[in-house]
C-alpha cells in the first residue's frame, strides 16, 4: 500500500447523502405547501394565503413552529422506544433516495439491485410505526400501530408482484437499466405494456404510504391520530416528513418503472422526471381530498382477495408471453 | 285508537283529555306497583316511549310517563304519585329499554329511586353533586289539583281523592273555571 487510493465512491456517497438531505428538506416544504393548496382549491378556498405572497412562506413558518415546540412524553411511556421511533422512521428515507436515477447524471449510487434495495429499506418504516405505537403507552396509538403493521406487511406483497412483472420484461433490477429499456414517447413506456401492474402498484403505493383512502393507521376520526397521537414538535415533524418522503419515493419508483424515468418527448432530463413524479404526487393528494376512508377489514380484503390474485395472474401472464415471444 | 291495553288494568283514575288542549288523549293515574304492568301492556300494543318526567307537587312527586303510537296522535300519559320522603317507583327499563336513561335523568333531578333499575348512577349531573336541583322548596310547591285538570273522567277509584269533586264541578261550570284560571 504505497499510494493511498482516494475513496471516490465514498466521497460520492457522502456528497449524495448531503444533497439528498437538502432535497428531502426542500421537497418536504414544497409538498406541505402543495398539499394545502390542493386541499384549499378542491374545497373552493385559497389555502394558505397570508404568510408571504400566496402563502409561500407558510411551510417555513410551520417548520419553525414544529422545531420550536416542546417535546412531550406521556407518563408511563418507554423513553427509549418512544424517542427511537421517529428517528427509525426518518433515517432510512435518506438512504432510499440514493439509488433513484433522477437523470443519467443525477444518480446518487448505481445499485444493481436498486429496486430490492429500496423495498428492503422502506420496510423499516413499519418497525418505526410499531415502536411508536407500543412506546407511547396510549391505546389509540397501539391500535394505530396494529393497523399499520398489518397494512404495510400485506400491501408489500402485491406491490412487489406488480414490479416483478416489469422486471421480468427488462431482466434487470437496476433502476437506470429499467429506464433505458423504455423509449422517450409515452407509448414506449411500461405503463402501456403493463397497465394492470401499474394500477396494482399505484393502489399498493397509496396504501403503503398510509394515504387516504387507506390512511387507517392515522385515521383521525377513528383513532384520533393513530400511532403519532402522543408525539409533538419535531418528533411529530419527523414522522410527517418521513410520510411525505415515502410518498416521493413510491412516486419516483412509479416514474422510473412505468413512466420512462427521465426520458420524455423532445428532450430528456431531470425535468421530465420531476414533472412525472409531481403529477403522481398530485394525484395522490387529489385522492385524499376526494375519498372517504375504507374500513380495516375491507382494506385487507382488497389486498388479499383482489390485488394479490390479480398481481399473481399478471405476473404469470407476463412470464408466459415472455416465454412464447 | 284502541284502548285494549286498559282493559282489566287496575287504575286509580283514568281520564280522557282533549288533544287540542293538552296534547294528550289519555291521562291515567296508577299506583306505583301497576306501572310495570301498564308499560308491558302498552308495549304489546306497539306504543313507543316518549319520555319520563317528574313534577314536584305539594302532594308528592308526580312521575309522568308519556307514550305515543306510530299510527297517529295517541299520546298516553301514565302518572303515579309517590311521597316526598320515600320516592320509589319500579323501573320499566326491562320493558322499554329506552326508559333506562330517562329514569336515570329523573333520579338525577329529583332523587326518585327506580327499583329494579340496572344501573342507577348519575347520568347528566356530576357524581358528587349531593342534591337534586329540580326539587322545589316546601312553600313553592303547589297541590296537584291546581296544576292540571283531570279531563273527562272515565273511571275513578273511590279512594282516589286528588281531584275532590272539583273535576265534576268543572265539567258542569265551565265559565266559573275560566274565571279561576285568569287569576
Amino acid at each position, binding site marked *: 500500500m504505497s499510494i493511498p487510493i482516494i475513496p471516490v465512491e465514498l466521497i460520492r456517497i457522502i456528497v449524495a447523502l448531503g444533497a439528498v438531505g437538502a432535497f428531502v428538506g426542500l421537497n418536504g416544504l414544497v409538498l406541505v405547501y402543495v398539499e394545502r393548496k390542493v386541499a384549499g382549491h378542491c374545497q373552493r378556498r385559497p389555502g394558505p394565503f397570508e404568510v408571504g405572497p400566496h402563502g409561500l412562506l407558510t411551510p417555513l413558518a410551520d417548520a419553525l413552529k414544529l422545531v420550536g415546540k416542546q417535546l412531550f412524553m406521556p407518563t408511563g411511556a418507554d423513553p427509549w422506544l418512544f424517542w427511537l421511533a421517529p428517528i427509525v422512521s426518518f433515517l432510512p428515507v435518506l438512504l432510499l433516495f440514493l439509488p433513484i436515477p433522477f437523470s443519467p447524471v443525477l444518480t446518487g449510487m448505481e445499485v444493481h439491485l436498486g429496486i430490492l434495495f429500496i423495498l428492503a429499506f422502506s420496510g423499516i418504516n413499519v418497525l418505526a410505526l410499531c415502536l411508536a405505537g407500543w412506546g407511547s403507552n396510549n391505546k389509540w396509538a397501539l391500535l394505530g400501530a396494529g393497523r399499520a403493521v398489518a397494512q404495510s406487511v400485506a400491501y408489500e406483497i402485491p406491490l412487489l408482484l406488480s414490479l416483478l412483472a416489469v422486471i421480468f420484461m427488462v431482466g434487470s433490477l437496476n433502476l437506470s437499466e429499467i429506464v433505458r429499456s423504455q423509449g422517450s414517447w409515452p407509448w414506449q413506456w411500461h405503463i402501456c405494456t403493463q397497465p394492470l401492474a401499474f394500477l396494482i402498484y399505484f393502489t399498493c403505493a397509496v396504501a403503503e404510504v398510509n394515504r387516504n383512502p387507506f390512511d387507517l393507521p392515522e385515521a383521525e376520526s377513528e383513532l384520533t391520530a393513530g400511532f403519532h397521537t402522543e408525539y409533538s414538535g419535531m418528533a411529530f415533524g419527523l414522522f410527517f416528513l418521513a410520510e411525505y418522503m415515502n410518498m416521493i419515493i413510491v412516486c419516483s419508483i412509479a416514474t422510473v418503472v412505468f413512466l420512462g424515468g427521465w426520458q420524455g418527448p423532445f428532450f430528456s432530463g431531470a425535468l421530465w422526471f420531476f414533472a412525472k413524479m409531481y403529477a403522481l404526487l398530485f394525484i395522490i393528494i*387529489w*385522492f385524499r381530498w*376526494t375519498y372517504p376512508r375504507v374500513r380495516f377489514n375491507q382494506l385487507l380484503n382488497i389486498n388479499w382477495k383482489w390485488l394479490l390474485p390479480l398481481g399473481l395472474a399478471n405476473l404469470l401472464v407476463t412470464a408466459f408471453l415472455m416465454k412464447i415471444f | 285508537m284502541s284502548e285494549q291495553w286498559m282493559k282489566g288494568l287496575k287504575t286509580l283514575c283514568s281520564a280522557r283529555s282533549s288533544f287540542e288542549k293538552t296534547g294528550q288523549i289519555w291521562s291515567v293515574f296508577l299506583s306505583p306497583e301497576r306501572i310495570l304492568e301498564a308499560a308491558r301492556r302498552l308495549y304489546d300494543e306497539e306504543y313507543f316511549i316518549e319520555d319520563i318526567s317528574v313534577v314536584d307537587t305539594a302532594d308528592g312527586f308526580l312521575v309522568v310517563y308519556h307514550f305515543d303510537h306510530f299510527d297517529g296522535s295517541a299520546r298516553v300519559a301514565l302518572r303515579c304519585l309517590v311521597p316526598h320522603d320515600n320516592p320509589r317507583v319500579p323501573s320499566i327499563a326491562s320493558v322499554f329499554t329506552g326508559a333506562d336513561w330517562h329514569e336515570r335523568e329523573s333520579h338525577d333531578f329529583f332523587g326518585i329511586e327506580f327499583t329494579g333499575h340496572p344501573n342507577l348512577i348519575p347520568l347528566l349531573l356530576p357524581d358528587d353533586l349531593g342534591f337534586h336541583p329540580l326539587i322545589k322548596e316546601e312553600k313553592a310547591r303547589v297541590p296537584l289539583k291546581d296544576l292540571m285538570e283531570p279531563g273527562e273522567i272515565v273511571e275513578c277509584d273511590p279512594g282516589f281523592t286528588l281531584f275532590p269533586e272539583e273535576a265534576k264541578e268543572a265539567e258542569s261550570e265551565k265559565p266559573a273555571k275560566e274565571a279561576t284560571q285568569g287569576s
Partner: protein
Amino acid sequence: MGALRESWQNIVDLWSLIVGLKVTGKYFCYRHRTVHYPRKTVDNINTFRGPLELVPKSKDPTKPKCIVCMMCATNCPCGAITLVKKKAPKPTPEELKAEEEAKARGEKVKKKKAPKEPARFIQDFSLCSLCGICVENCPVGSIRFSNDVYFAVTRREDLALDLLARLRERAGEMEKTLSVEQEA
C-alpha cells in the same frame, strides 16, 4: 354465479371513484368562495344584530328617546341592561329661597320632578343573548340593534357598553360629516 356478478358489479362501481375525482377536479379549477376579510368585506350585514344602540330624539341627536320605563331592564332574560334614572336637578339658591318663602306662606310646594331621562344606560354585551325582547317591548322605540359586525374588544370589562356615550359619539361624528359636507 351471484358472487361473480357481485364482483363484476364492484368493478363497474369503481367508475364512481373517477366521477368523484371529476367533481373535486372541477372545483379545483373554479374560483374560490373565501372572502379575504381585511381586504374585502361582505355586504349583507344590514340585518345583523350587533350590540344595542339608542335611538336619538329627532330634535336633539345627543339625547335618546328613552323614558326610563325600565321595560327593557326588567324583561331582559340575562340581566344585561343596567338603567339608571336621572335624579331631580338640585334647586338653585334662588329657587330654594322661593320655595322656603312659599312654605312660609303656607302654599303647597311643587317639588321639581326628575326628568324622564336616563342617567346611565349600560348594556353588558358579554351577557346579552341578542333575543330582541328589549327592542320589541320598548314603548317609545328608543333602542335598536346596531349592525356592527366588526365589534370587538380586548378586555372583558370593555364589553359593558355605555350606550349614552356611544350615542353622543355618533352624534358628534354625524355633525363632523355634516360640517365637512357643508364646507365642500
